[in-house]
């Protein structure tokens, strides 16, 4: 049955690939937590630069914090792992958290100490969700995969590639 499920997943992934990513030659922009933190402005605003990504497919990497139901249809993406109690400074809050709504049928093995690569449609700006409350950065219809050898950028560091 797992073989069947793997085959089905493979076929679905192929189907998803045919409609998901941008056309050949178009690069998916990668955002970092440093960019998100830098984009925050007073009065619940974000910069025009980060708003330019609204509605576009982006990539971002971070740790999964399971803040929604355990089927991971929704989770938080954070610069800091949910299990490390002493490893590094705490996130400053909203500006370093991305609210991720996964695409239907996404299946992944959760590991609190692994970095994941998220690709999906980006939204920036203050929004209140009935179930998940206030958010500033969201990725919808997200696909998730493990990011081997990934690095998370802290505020003040290089803005990444």
């Amino acid at each position, binding site marked *: *049955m797992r073989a069947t499920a793997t085959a089905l997943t493979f076929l679905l992934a192929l189907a998803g690939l045919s409609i998901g990513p941008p056309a050949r030659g178009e690069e998916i922009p990668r955002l970092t937590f440093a960019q998100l933190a830098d984009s925050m402005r007073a009065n619940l605003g974000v910069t025009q630069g980060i708003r330019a990504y609204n509605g576009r497919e982006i990539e971002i990497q971070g740790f999964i914090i*399971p803040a*929604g*139901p*355990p089927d991971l249809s929704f989770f938080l993406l954070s610069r800091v792992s949910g299990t490390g*109690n002493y490893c590094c400074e*705490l996130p400053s*809050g909203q500006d370093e958290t991305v609210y991720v709504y996964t695409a239907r049928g996404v299946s992944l093995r*959760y590991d609190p100490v692994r970095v994941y690569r998220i690709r999906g449609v980006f939204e920036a700006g203050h929004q209140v969700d009935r179930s*998940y409350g206030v958010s500033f950065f969201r990725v919808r219809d997200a696909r998730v995969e493990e990011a081997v050898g990934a690095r998370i950028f802290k505020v003040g560091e290089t803005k990444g590639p």
Partner: protein
Amino acid sequence: MTPVTVVWRYLQGRFVTSVLTVVSVALGVSLVIASVLLTRGIKEGFIAGATDYNLIVGAKGSPTQLVLNVVFRMDAPTPNIPLSAYEDLRADPRVEAAVPVAMGDAYQGFRYVATSAAYFAPFSWRRHVPALATGRLFRSEAPERPDYEAVLGADAARRTGLKPEDRFYEGEEMATYPLRVVGVLRPTGTADDRAIFISLASYWEMNEVSRKARVKPLTAVLVRPKRLSDLTALHRGWNVGPDLQAALPSAILLNIFNLLGLVEDVLAVVLAVVAVVVGLYLFVTMYNATLERRREIATMRALGARRATVLGIVLLESCAIAGLGGLAGILGGHGVAALGASLLAARGGPVTHALALSALQPVTFGAVVALGALAGLLPAVLAYRTEVAENLAPL
């Protein structure tokens, strides 16, 4: 006579062997279906019963024990925590809702859960709000003058037969503190259905240790932050201290699912071996049948049947046996899964039984028929190559 009629006659001619082969295939398929449905049902049961609170604060120890006990009423409660932990959380400006919970013993196996009225609050973000089917909630009383009122979950009320105004207690030592049923909740599909809710004041006064204690005890506090982005900071803030811990319930459940995934992997290997055994049994049956029928096949050929027709008849027979076994197995597997789910549920296990049609049934049926075709291939080729002159010789 059409190939279908010939196959039907063949099945009738070897009735006992055919039935036994169908039963063998059905048992194998039942095992697959029941295993998949039950593992899926347990996982879905955990998801359906998960709490809407994002954080559980309890005593230092196993976070899995904390979540399983507080959310699913399984395992033993973690050690007590002071009431001040709840008061600190309630005063925290980052916290929208903090609900105190103290786990008690049980009445006829249904656990006492002491809490406040906040446990039943209909927040917009809650998927399962415990709503009253009849009666009312217990009153919030002064700690030293409890009313000993109880609100029963739907299953607890149904199985104990208790209804509003009934008084009950379990064990002679509890006779001094009989509880009075004041309400019954609607079914929620969660562990709340199997709980008996009482007020914290009643719990503290019923319990000999807490009655004398200056600092009133709790088992845990359920927490919902105002902004989910504060979850990481809250989680870490409570974990760095030496006495208390904070657990993310969904993270704990996902870890349990990872373990279930390992079990599923082992199960997949076992099921693959079962499929091979069933396929081999089918092959041996078809092979022997073809050897026995060489003379009949030669006769058919002599009467004008083409080689391809003979090949098709053997393949069709093999697929028919596999198909019948597959159908019986799918039905039987659902029956076994339903029985297993009800037994697990009776023991308090979080399990749902997914009877809805999904890809599982058609994929399994297709795979079994394909297995039948594969098992029948060599016997079919044997039949295809049967020489007329050689096999029609006088006996």
